[in-house]
């Protein structure tokens, strides 16, 4: 029986004045997917992610999350329904510490966000989960430092940790390794690879090595439209993609 479709867009369009950033994109993401979204700069990748996650509202078309029509849901409601994302530019709480950020996210997920009488840290189960997540991401050492003063790479890892703390069904990763120095990129890739199987992943990435090592399926976006979709091998050998995007560099699978 074909795997359950967790995230789906039908004929999705987004226009900013005259510019069509998303051009009738129909797309579906099955359970456990490891899907990469690639395309030249300005192809509308981040816009598409913002549409899926509710940061932007579409001009037309619909979005379905686990079967429910979430087109008009707020980002908050979609987050609660199991859709998490990281941001291309770090969006973290500068004054808080990593452990506090995770405790906050877990508390919101469990509906404990508004509990005002007991201090943060009273829920031992939350603390244990947060500490485990930090360990999983390998950033236990900076658990109590102010996020504002963390190294850029550590912040990227924290972005992923926060998304994971939401226990999502679908995870949208917007260039998780962007701007991260070479030696730390491997760490991020290992983390992404080790993500739980049942979570469906979309990865936006420019670095083809990462894409081909990670992705089980790839979509190529050009000028806001879905240019071509397929397995890594099909995409690598497809002349149109090569001509539009990959240029002459030969790609070994």
């Amino acid at each position: 029986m074909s795997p359950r479709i967790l995230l789906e867009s039908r004929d999705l369009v987004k226009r900013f004045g005259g510019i069509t950033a998303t051009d009738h994109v129909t797309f579906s993401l099955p359970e456990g997917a490891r899907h990469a979204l690639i395309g030249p700069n300005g192809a509308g990748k981040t816009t598409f992610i913002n549409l899926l996650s509710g940061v932007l509202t579409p001009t037309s078309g619909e979005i379905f999350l686990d079967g429910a029509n979430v087109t008009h849901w707020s980002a908050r409601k979609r987050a609660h329904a199991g859709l998490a994302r990281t941001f291309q530019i770090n969006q973290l709480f500068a004054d808080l510490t990593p452990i506090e950020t995770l405790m906050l996210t877990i508390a919101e997920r469990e509906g404990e966000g508004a509990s005002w009488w007991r201090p943060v840290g009273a829920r031992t189960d939350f603390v244990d989960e947060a500490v485990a997540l930090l360990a999983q991401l390998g950033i236990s050492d900076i658990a109590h430092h102010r996020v504002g003063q963390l190294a850029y790479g550590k912040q990227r890892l924290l972005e992923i940790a926060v998304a994971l703390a939401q226990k999502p069904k679908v995870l949208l990763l917007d260039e998780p390794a962007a701007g991260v120095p070479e030696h730390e990129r491997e760490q991020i890739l290992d983390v992404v690879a080790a993500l739980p199987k049942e979570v469906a992943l979309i990865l936006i990435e420019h670095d083809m090595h990462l894409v081909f090592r990670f992705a089980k399926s790839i979509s190529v976006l050009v000028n806001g439209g879905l240019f071509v979709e397929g397995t890594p091998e099909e995409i690598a050998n497809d002349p149109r993609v090569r001509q539009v995007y990959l240029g002459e560099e030969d790609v070994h699978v």
Partner: protein
Amino acid sequence: MSAITPSPEATRARAVLLGRSRWGVAEIIFWILAFACYWLFPTKLSLLSEIAILGLVALSVDLVLGYAGIVTLGQGAFFGIGAYAAGLAAKHGMGTTLWSDPVIGLFIGGGAAAVIGFATSFLVLRGSDMTRLMVTLGVALIVDEVVNQMKWLTGGSDGLQGVLPSAVLGIWEFDLFGRVAFVYSLVVLFVLFVVARALVKSPFGLSLQAIKGNMLRTRAIGMPVNARLVAVYTVAAFYAGVAGALAAQTTQFASPDYVAFHRSADAMLMLVFGGAGHLYGGLLGSIIFRTMQDVLGNITPQYWQFWLGVTLVALVLFVRGGILGLLGNMLAAWRRKGGAS
């Protein structure tokens, strides 16, 4: 999640997190000193109860501005509403019925302010700092107009006459020397401070700091941002209302001056003086601000405002985060130099 036995990191993490909310030695000393003022400054009790009331208003601004990041120039409106509500209760209770008991008056004052706070909280959810500044200012001006026009109820610009609160809890009568007033104000401040402290150290308080930090991320992790802002704005309005009630009961008077612009401006100045977002910033700010005003007022009665203006400009230009921020930086610099830790 596998229930792993608490690893060393987990126990350390819990210790650090819970450590944030444990009562420090300095905090305990601060409150002992505050209550000791009863014996230390027997002749200055009415000034001290005024400082306690101003501290409560600064605390209410701290919740909204320091923690949730909402710029407000309208907390004076809730202070005034609280003062008039409690004043009217005391006046019509005529010291006889239950209604004129000051403690009930506090809830009437705080409650009335909270209702108006809740109603106007939706106005400050969206908009930039500038819009929020002007909306809160506009609300305060409207309350001022209403108080001035409803002469039959509020006594108009002459103020509310005949406010006769009965004895606190039926036991302590307000004495001329301001002893009861001082202890009463300080106890109310302490109780509300403890509640605010718990609030700020709780997940709710953490979520406020998150909202102030990054609105986009708070929405991405599913936080009902508007509900939180409405809640904190209403609680802050309650705090300012109780402060107003205290003022009306201890001075047995309420006037439109309670709602004037300078009340809201003073509250914000005191907070920033002390250091916003430190919870003690407001209290520290009100002590220094009001003492400076009293001392300077006696030397050069006319120009307290001049020195206030100069200190303010200097504060903004040279100091980040008020006195507590300044002390924090100095200590951090001292520690870095001395390599003490």
